[in-house]
């Protein structure tokens, strides 16, 4: 078929450009010729329009194939990358294992901490109105003392609602223990809360059944969870039934069950299974500004600003508190100066709890910050490992890079290749990490007292976090090695030269040093936390806390029955002594009052306890001046024993104050107490706080706690004996006992937990750092094979070579130590500020950390170094 060329036939210019771009050069000529011919045929037979339409149709048909093909080759390349990556992993099993294991440990640690932190931060966020609920607190500045008091009297809530239109509603919550009679006629003790009806509307505590609006309205109403109902009434369907509770002076009173409560979420800052209406309390208990025993929460309108309310603290104090406070304050003290009203967002309570009188055990912001930092650091150490090992092994990949470059791979492609390799490794690590988390989660939960499930990690935003961690770790760890590897010059590499630059050595060294700085800081921190907690556990408390059993009686017990009980108990040789008191050391509830020496001028705030004659002896407190209370003195019914701090607070010394008379000016009875003794200061709060002045009044009738010192030995038997005797004398009181030392330690749960978590994660990070060091050591030994060979040939002994190899690593560790010390000192000094009684950060701590780090480093490196120095020189030199 003859072509019919025509000079008038010109396809659009861009079509040639397009063909040139998309076709191989050798095809372009022929294809564009064919196209031109067909175009011209159409042009001459059907006109320009038809020809152009045809062209467009052809383009529309074939253009999509181009990106599709491109993609196809891309995938082929990635398949090739993966294949090469797997081959590399297989060829260098040790390095692959170190790399992946290190990353996996890092990721697992990081993710575990992430879950923990997320859980800590989630407290109280589930309430619909979480952002507009505040707790009313008072900030007190009195003389040198300063403190936040989260508890209030029953009147605050209503005052807030009346005074400020921004306050929509309030709820009062009191946590207390009650004794109830269950369906088997057994007395049981149970922690409950008493609250206003608004508890169920302000907070998100839904009812399974019952009317939430009125459930806690009437006096003697109770709502409880189905579990509690089953426990005490034998049925989950308890709505409308009654529950027998010891109320008002221990009389059994029927409470109406007006609602079945859904379980309170774990991440609530206070927990309860049962709530009774606060109206069940007597009017005078609630209607006072002075008896501060409950928590007041207010709900603000959406638009209200809590700072505006706090700003009006002055007028609030003046209006409501000045009057009731006046009798208790020295005349020259202005209540509005010492007391400020504060509003704490409920979402802040868990992480910023009050030091005293807090509702339940809360968390701490410091822990969250510290653990978040550890999470990041662990991951960082793992990444550094990866970077170091990859660059160290770069020589092995040099030939591959050279070859790829020779056959046309440009730098971008190589970057892509190495990054996809590290992302692959990060993915493998992540899978291992997830498995590790799944395995260790129950143990971690037990340790941290959480109920975290693996599914938390895989839902919603968290799966994105996991993916992000994989990508970021992969890219972060891969970026430097990728740049480094892809920079090889093919000619040089293929000729057999690998680069041995000083810069690369320096880079790797500084990376290793950073790892060790982190590890050493963690070692020092762990040691400090351990020492401090040891101090807390073993600190001489000023009394003997071992072998002391405390029986908690909820109501004041009947003295006519206590005395026979005491007599019978003490006939047994296992029970050494017994005391009755209103308080015990390590407890959180106090009352304080204004005291004055009769011949003194100034009023002083002093804590007060009521004790009997046996208290000081039973607790083994040390009397430093005067004498103990004794039945031998008839006047001792109005005597008092002070602690050392109180003697000093009252402006005297322990010796001089004996015999003086103490007076409570504020109270109407104007009762006077003769100071008969002063005991050595003992820790009756936690070691977070200083020891404050305390007066122990001889008032055996006011009590609540029975302390029994028992002989060491078979404690179980003794307890059985105690319980049976108790049941005999007090049949309607449950025998609630605890060991004093355990109860005191329970106050440090948070710190002890933190100590354990700290230990584990710093252990993990040190392990990861060691993995890296091990890898580097084996590489370094390998690289120096020839050097070692030559040295040996020239007569160097094994110790010499060994020393030479170890010197390099010990140097790094020493440098790390020097940098890490001030860092650790600064951090731990801050943490220790939480304790009033604290250890000093001695030099020995740092030296121990240095020795530990050095020992670990040397142990890690020694094997490799030994192997290298024992090698036969003939083997390493035979190729020269």
């Amino acid at each position, binding site marked *: *078929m003859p*072509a019919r*060329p025509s000079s008038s036939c010109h396809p659009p210019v861009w079509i040639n450009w397009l063909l040139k771009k998309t076709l191989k050069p050798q095809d372009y*000529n*022929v*294809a*564009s*010729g*064919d*196209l*031109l*011919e*067909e175009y011209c*045929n159409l042009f001459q037979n059907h006109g320009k329009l038809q020809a152009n339409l045809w062209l467009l149709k*052809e383009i529309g*048909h*074939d253009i999509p*194939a181009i990106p599709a093909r491109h993609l196809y080759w891309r995938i082929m390349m990635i398949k090739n990358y993966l294949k090469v990556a797997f081959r590399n992993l297989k060829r260098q099993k040790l390095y692959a294992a170190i790399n992946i294991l290190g990353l996996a440990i890092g990721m697992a640690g990081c993710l575990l901490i992430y879950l923990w932190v997320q859980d800590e931060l989630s407290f109280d966020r589930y309430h619909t109105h979480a952002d507009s609920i505040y707790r009313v607190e008072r900030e007190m500045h009195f003389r040198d003392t300063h403190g936040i008091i989260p508890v209030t009297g029953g009147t605050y809530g209503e005052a807030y609602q009346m005074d400020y239109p921004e306050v929509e509603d309030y709820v009062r919550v009191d946590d207390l223990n009650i004794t109830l009679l269950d369906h088997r006629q057994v007395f049981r003790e149970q922690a409950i809360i008493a609250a206003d009806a608004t508890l169920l509307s302000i907070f998100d505590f839904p009812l399974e059944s019952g009317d939430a609006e009125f459930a806690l309205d009437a006096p003697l109403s109770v709502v409880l969870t189905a579990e509690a109902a089953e426990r005490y009434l034998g049925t989950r369907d308890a709505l409308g039934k009654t529950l027998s509770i010891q109320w008002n002076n221990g009389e059994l009173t029927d409470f109406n069950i007006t609602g079945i409560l859904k379980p309170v979420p774990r991440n609530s800052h206070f927990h309860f299974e049962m709530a009774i209406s606060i109206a069940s309390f007597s009017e005078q208990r609630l209607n006072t500004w002075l008896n501060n025993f409950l928590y007041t929460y207010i709900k603000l309108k959406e638009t209200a600003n809590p700072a505006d309310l706090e700003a009006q603290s002055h007028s609030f104090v003046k209006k409501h508190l000045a009057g009731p406070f006046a009798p208790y304050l020295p005349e020259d003290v202005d209540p509005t100066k010492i007391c400020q009203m504060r509003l704490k967002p409920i979402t802040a309570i868990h992480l910023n709890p009050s030091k005293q009188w807090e509702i339940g055990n809360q968390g701490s912001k410091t822990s969250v910050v510290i653990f978040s930092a550890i999470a990041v650091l662990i991951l960082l150490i793992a990444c550094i490992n990866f970077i170091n090992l990859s660059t160290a092994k770069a020589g092995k990949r040099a030939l591959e890079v050279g070859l790829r470059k020779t056959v046309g791979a440009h730098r971008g492609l190589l970057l892509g290749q190495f990054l996809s390799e590290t992302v692959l490794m990060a993915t493998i690590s992540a899978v291992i990490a997830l498995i590790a988390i799944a395995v260790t989660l129950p143990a971690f939960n037990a340790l941290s007292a959480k109920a975290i499930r693996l599914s938390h990690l895989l839902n919603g935003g968290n799966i994105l976090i996991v993916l992000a961690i994989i990508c970021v770790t992969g890219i972060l760890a891969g970026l430097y090695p990728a740049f480094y590897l892809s920079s090889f010059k093919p000619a040089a590499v293929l000729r057999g030269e690998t680069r041995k630059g000083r810069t690369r050595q320096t880079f790797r060294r500084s990376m290793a040093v950073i790892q060790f700085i982190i590890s050493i800081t963690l070692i020092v921190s762990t040691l400090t936390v351990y020492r401090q907690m040891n101090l807390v556990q073993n600190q001489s408390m000023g009394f003997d806390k071992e072998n002391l059993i405390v029986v908690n009686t909820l109501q004041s017990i009947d003295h006519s029955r206590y005395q026979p009980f005491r007599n019978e108990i003490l006939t047994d040789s296992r029970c050494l002594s017994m005391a009755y008191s209103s308080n015990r050391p390590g407890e959180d509830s106090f009352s304080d009052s204004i005291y004055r020496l009769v011949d003194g001028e100034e009023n002083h705030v002093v804590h007060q306890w009521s004790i009997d004659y046996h208290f000081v002896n039973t607790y083994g407190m040390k009397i430093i001046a005067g004498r103990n209370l004794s039945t031998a003195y008839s006047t001792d019914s109005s005597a008092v024993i002070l602690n050392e701090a109180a003697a000093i607070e009252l402006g005297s010394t322990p010796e001089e104050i004996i015999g003086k008379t103490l007076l409570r000016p504020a109270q109407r009875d104007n009762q006077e107490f003769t100071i008969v003794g002063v005991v050595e200061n003992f820790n009756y709060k936690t070691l977070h706080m200083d020891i404050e002045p305390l007066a122990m009044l001889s008032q055996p009738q006011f009590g609540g706690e029975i302390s029994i010192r028992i002989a060491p030995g078979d404690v179980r038997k003794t307890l059985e004996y105690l319980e049976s005797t108790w049941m005999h004398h007090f049949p309607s009181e449950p025998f609630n006992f605890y060991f004093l030392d355990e109860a005191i330690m329970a106050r440090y749960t948070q710190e002890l937990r933190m100590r354990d978590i700290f230990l584990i994660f710093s252990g993990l990070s040190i392990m990861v750092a060691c993995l890296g060091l091990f890898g580097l050591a084996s590489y370094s030994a390998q690289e120096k094979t020839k050097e070692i060979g030559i040295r040996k040939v020239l007569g160097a002994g094994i110790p010499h070579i060994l020393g030479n190899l170890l010197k390099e690593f010990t140097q790094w560790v020493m440098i790390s130590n020097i940098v890490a010390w001030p860092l650790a000192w600064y951090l731990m000094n801050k943490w220790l500020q939480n304790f009033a009684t604290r250890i000093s950060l001695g030099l020995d701590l740092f030296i121990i950390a240095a020795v530990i780090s050095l020992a670990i480093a040397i142990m890690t490196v020694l094997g490799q170094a030994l192997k290298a120095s024992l090698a036969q020189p003939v083997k390493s030199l035979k190729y020269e």
Partner: protein
Amino acid sequence: MKLLSRKEEMLLLTIWKLGDNAYGVPVRERIVETTGRYWSIGAVYDVLDRLVRKGLIVAQESSPMAERGGKAKRYFTITTLGHEALEEVKTLHAALWSGLA
């Protein structure tokens, strides 16, 4: 060897029939004519490429031609291997059809 695909078979036959004049444009014209369907340029050239790679046809470029704006034509001829492949498909067809209709 793998059997020819239907497209490959059709194009091979077309080239065979066209004899000396088998280059891109007539190949496409003829196959559109015979099948009565639309064949895009890509559909034809892609298969031609594949046939060359498999060694069933050989391509030979003419000298540049003025009437084509100085571009060469690429002529295709069937190789022995191509003939064998066609034979194989034909026998297979016959075997498959035998005994029917």
